[in-house]
C-alpha cells in the first residue's frame, strides 16, 4: 500500500540488505562471531563440551540464562551428549565426518529441533530463548527449542470479567495463547501463521483463521498490511492495531481487542481473523463493526431474553454516556420550554446562585471525573477503593454544598460515568467519552440543534468508516434481518443458522436447524415413552 510505504519508507532501506552470515566449519570462528555480536551481554552462557567415547569431539552450546528451561538443557541436551553418547557410542565409521548428523538424529532427546547455517539467525534464536549447538568441523548449527522463562500463569482476564463463562485469559506468551485457542477449536482447518514484526524486537505475531470459513478478502488484506509494517519495535498488539487500521484518525476502533480466548474462538468460527502478539495478553479480532463492540461473550451463555434486554440496555447506555451532559446544557440554557413545567421550575430553583453557566458547570464536573478516573488507575491498590468512592461522591457533594455546581449536574455526570462503563469494549467506551465533550460544546453553542449536528457528523463518519472492507455500521446498514438478530437483541441460539452475512464466507451454514432437530428428538422421546408404557 502506497501510504504505508510513505510513512515507513524511510526505515525501509536500513535493515534490508542483511542476508545473514554463513557459519564456517571452524567452531572457534563461529563462536567468536557470536561472542563478538553478543559482546557485553553477560547473561549469555557458553559451554564447551567434548563428546564421544574418548571425548574427542568438540561441541559448544550457547544459551541465555533466564530465557531457557535449564532442566531441559541439563537433562536432555547435556546429559544425552555427555553421558548417554558415551554409553551407547555408535561405531567410529559412522561418526567420522558426520558427527553432526549422528547427534542431531540420534542423540538429542529434546523434542523440538531444527538446523540452520545462518549465524545471524542463530543469534536471533538464542535471543528468543533457544539453545544453539555448534559443531567443530561443520557449519550446521542445531537449534534446540528450550524456551522456559517465568511467566504469569493463566488467570482471569482483568478487563473483561464475566459472571458466567471461562475464567481463562490470555497471558504474555504467544505459545500459551495459541494453545488456549487450539483447545477450543480442534479442527485441522484452524491455521496459525506466524510472522515476526519489528526490526529490533522481532516480536512473534500469529495470525489465526479457519481455512474453509474465513473471509478471504479480509485475510488477504490483513496479511498484506502486516507484511508492510516496518517499525522498530512492537510491544503490544496496540501497535499492530494502529498500523493496520484503515483510519487511524477515527476515535472508533476498527479492530477489537480482547483477553478472552472464548471470544477469539467464537469470532474465528464466524469467519473472522485473529491476531495474537507475543508479550501481550490482548488479541486482535478483525474485522469489527460497531455492533460487535457491544457484544459480550456472556450473552451467548445465558438465556436469550436477559441477554437481549442487556444488549438494549448497553445501547441506551452508550447514548446516555454520549449525550447526557449535552442534553442537560441544551435544555436548561436554550429550550426550557421543552421540558415539563415542574422540572423546569425545579432546575431553575436548584441553579439559583450557581456562579457558572451550565456549560462550564458541566465541563468542570466532567473534567474532574475524568481526572479522578485517570488518577484511579495509578493509585496503589490499598487506597484505590477509597478514592473511587471518595472522589465520586464526596467531592461531588462538597461541590454542591459549596454552591459551585447544582445537584442535578452531579447526578448527570455520575450517570454518564456509570453508563460508559456498561459498554463492553473499552476502546469503544473511550470513543464515547471523547465525543461527549464535543457534544457538550455543540450543545452550548446551538442547543438542541447542536446535538443534532453532532449526530449528523458522527453518523457520517461512522457510515463512511470501513473495517477491512466491511462497513462499520453493519448490520444496521445494508440491512440483513438475520444479522440484526444478533445485534440489537440476542435471539435464541436456535435462530443462528448462518454465519454473519456481512462476511463473505464460503461456508454459510454453521448449524443445522436445531429447532427441527430438537422437535424431532422430543417426538422421539414421546414415542419411546409411549412404547414403554405399553
Amino acid at each position, binding site marked *: 500500500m502506497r501510504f504505508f510505504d510513505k510513512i515507513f519508507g524511510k526505515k525501509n532501506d536500513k535493515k534490508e540488505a542483511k542476508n545473514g552470515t554463513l557459519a564456517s566449519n571452524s567452531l572457534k570462528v563461529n563462536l567468536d562471531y557470536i561472542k563478538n555480536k553478543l559482546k557485553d551481554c553477560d547473561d549469555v552462557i557458553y559451554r564447551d563440551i567434548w563428546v564421544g567415547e574418548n571425548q574427542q569431539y568438540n561441541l559448544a552450546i550457547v544459551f541465555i540464562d533466564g530465557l531457557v528451561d535449564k532442566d531441559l538443557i541439563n537433562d536432555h541436551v547435556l546429559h544425552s551428549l555427555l553421558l548417554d553418547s558415551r554409553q551407547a557410542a555408535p561405531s567410529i565409521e559412522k561418526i567420522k565426518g558426520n558427527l553432526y548428523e549422528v547427534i542431531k538424529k540420534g542423540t538429542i532427546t529434546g523434542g523440538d529441533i531444527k538446523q540452520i547455517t545462518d549465524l545471524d539467525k542463530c543469534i536471533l534464536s538464542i535471543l528468543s530463548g533457544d539453545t544453539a549447538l555448534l559443531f567443530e568441523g561443520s557449519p550446521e548449527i542445531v537449534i534446540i527449542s528450550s524456551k522456559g522463562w517465568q511467566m504469569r500463569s493463566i488467570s482471569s482476564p482483568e478487563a473483561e470479567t464475566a459472571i458466567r463463562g471461562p475464567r481463562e485469559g490470555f497471558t504474555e506468551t504467544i505459545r500459551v495463547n495459541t494453545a488456549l485457542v487450539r483447545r477450543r477449536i480442534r479442527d485441522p482447518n484452524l491455521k496459525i501463521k506466524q510472522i515476526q514484526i519489528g526490526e529490533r524486537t522481532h516480536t512473534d505475531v500469529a495470525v489465526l483463521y479457519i481455512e474453509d470459513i474465513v473471509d478471504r478478502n479480509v485475510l488477504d488484506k490483513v496479511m498484506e498490511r502486516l507484511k508492510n509494517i516496518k517499525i522498530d519495535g512492537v510491544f503490544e498488539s496496540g501497535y499492530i492495531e494502529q498500523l493496520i487500521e484503515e483510519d487511524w484518525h477515527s476515535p472508533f476502533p476498527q479492530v477489537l481487542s480482547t483477553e478472552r480466548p472464548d471470544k477469539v474462538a467464537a469470532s474465528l468460527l464466524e469467519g473472522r481473523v485473529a491476531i495474537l502478539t507475543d508479550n501481550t495478553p490482548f488479541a486482535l479480532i478483525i474485522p469489527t463493526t460497531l455492533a460487535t463492540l457491544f457484544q459480550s461473550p456472556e450473552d451467548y451463555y445465558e438465556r436469550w431474553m436477559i441477554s437481549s434486554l442487556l444488549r438494549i440496555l448497553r445501547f441506551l447506555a452508550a447514548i446516555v454516556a454520549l449525550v447526557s451532559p449535552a442534553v442537560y446544557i441544551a435544555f436548561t*440554557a436554550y429550550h*426550557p*420550554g421543552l421540558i415539563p*413545567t415542574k422540572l*423546569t421550575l425545579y432546575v*431553575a*430553583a436548584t441553579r439559583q446562585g450557581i456562579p457558572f453557566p*451550565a456549560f462550564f458547570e458541566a465541563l468542570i464536573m466532567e473534567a474532574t471525573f475524568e481526572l479522578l478516573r485517570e488518577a484511579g488507575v495509578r493509585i496503589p491498590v490499598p487506597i484505590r477503593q477509597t478514592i473511587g468512592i471518595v472522589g465520586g461522591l464526596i467531592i461531588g457533594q462538597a461541590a454542591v454544598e459549596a454552591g459551585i455546581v447544582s445537584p442535578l449536574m452531579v447526578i448527570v455526570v455520575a450517570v454518564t460515568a456509570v453508563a460508559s462503563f456498561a459498554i463492553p469494549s473499552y476502546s469503544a467506551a473511550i470513543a464515547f467519552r471523547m465525543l461527549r465533550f464535543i457534544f457538550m460544546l455543540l450543545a*452550548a*453553542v446551538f442547543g438542541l440543534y447542536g446535538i443534532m449536528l453532532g449526530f449528523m457528523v458522527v453518523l457520517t463518519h461512522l457510515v463512511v468508516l470501513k473495517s477491512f472492507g466491511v462497513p462499520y455500521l453493519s448490520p444496521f446498514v445494508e440491512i440483513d434481518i438475520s444479522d440484526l438478530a444478533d445485534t440489537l437483541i440476542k435471539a435464541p441460539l436456535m435462530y443462528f443458522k448462518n454465519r454473519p452475512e456481512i462476511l463473505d464466507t464460503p461456508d454459510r451454514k454453521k448449524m443445522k436447524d436445531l429447532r427441527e432437530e430438537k422437535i424431532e428428538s422430543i417426538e422421539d422421546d414421546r414415542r419411546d415413552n409411549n412404547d414403554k408404557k405399553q
Partner: protein
Amino acid sequence: MKRKLKIVILWVLILLMLTGCWDKIEIEDRAFVMAIGIDLSSSNKRYVVTFQFPNAAQITKGTSGGGGGSEKPSFAVSEVADTIFSASRHISTRIDKALYLGHTQAIIFGKDVVENKDKFQQVLDSLDRSYELSRKVYLLVTPQKAQDILLKKYEMEPNTGAYIRDIFKHYNRTSRFPTIDYNKITKSLHETNGNAIIPKIIAGKDEIKIAGSAIIKNYKLAGWMEDDENMGYMLLTGLVKGGDVAVSTPGDEERIEIPFNISNVIRRRAVKEENGKIIYRVILEVEGDITEYTFEKQMMKGDLLNVIERKTSDEIKKMTQKAINRFQKELKVDMLGIGDYIEKYHPSLWEKVGKDWDKIFPEVEIKVDVTSHVRRIGLFR
C-alpha cells in the same frame, strides 16, 4: 499545503461560531410566566398586561424546610403598553430576568377586553401567532379585572398559573364549566366567525373559582352562562364527562334531594326537514350512580329507581332547554354545533340553508330526548 489551508479555514470557522451562543440564557435567569392577565387601561386605549411567575428560589426551600417564611412564593408584575408583546418587552426595564412564555398555563381576559371587539381580536391574533406560547394554555374570562386575580396570593397554591391548570385537570368531576382548551376555542372562533365559549373565573378571598362561562358572539362578549345553562350546553355539545343532577323525591317529612352522578353520556343527533322547517333532534342517554339517599329507606325496592331515572331525565331536559333558550331565543347565535352537524352530515341540506344560517337558526325546532339509567347505587341497599 492544500490540506493545511483547509484545516485552517475550518478552525477559523469554528472559532467564529463559538463567539455565538446567541440564544443561551441560563435557566436561573429566566422568569417562567405561569399566567397572563389582560385588561384594558382606564382610557380603553391601551392594555394592562399582568405576568405572574413563581419565585424560583423559593421552590426548593419550601420542600426542604417547612413553610416559606418571609419570601414571596410568586411575583406578579403589570405593565401598560400598546400591544401585548410590547408589554412583555417593556417589562424588561423592571425585571432582571428574561420573561419566558413557554410554560404559561393560563391566560385571563378581563371583562373590558372581551367587550371591545377590536381589542379582543387583536389580542387573539397575537396569541395565535406567538411561537413561544404553548397551545396548551387555558383561556379564561373574568367579570372582574384580570389584574386583581393575579395580584393576589392564594394559600392553596401560590403559583396561580399552576393552580388554574390543576383545576382544569380535574374537570371531569363537575360540569360547571366547559372543558375547552385553546385549540377548541380558536377552532370555534375561526369556523363560526367569532363565536365561542370561554370558561369564567372569579377570585374569592383566598381562592379562585372557575365556574360558568362567557359567551362570545362576533368577537364580543354577549353574556354569561351559569351552572344549569352551562351543563345544558355541554350536554348538547357532547362535552360532558361527569357532573351531578339533583333530583327531588318525596320523603317522610320533606322532599329529599338525590344526587344523580353522571358517569357517561351518549349523544346522538338527527336532522329532518319538514314543511320547510328544520327539526334537530338530540337523543341523550345518560348513565350514572346514586350516591346519597336517606339512611333508612331501601333503594332496591319497587319502582324507586325508575322514578329517579324519570326525574333525572326531566331535570336534564330542563337544563338543555335553558341552554337552547339562551342561544336560540336570546342571543340568536348557534353555539350548539347544529350548523356544523348539518354541514358535515347533510351537505345537500347545508347548501340550501348554509348561507342564511344566522337567520334560519332561531327558527330551528330543537327537540331533546333524554333517557337515564342508574347503574350503581353504592354499597348500601
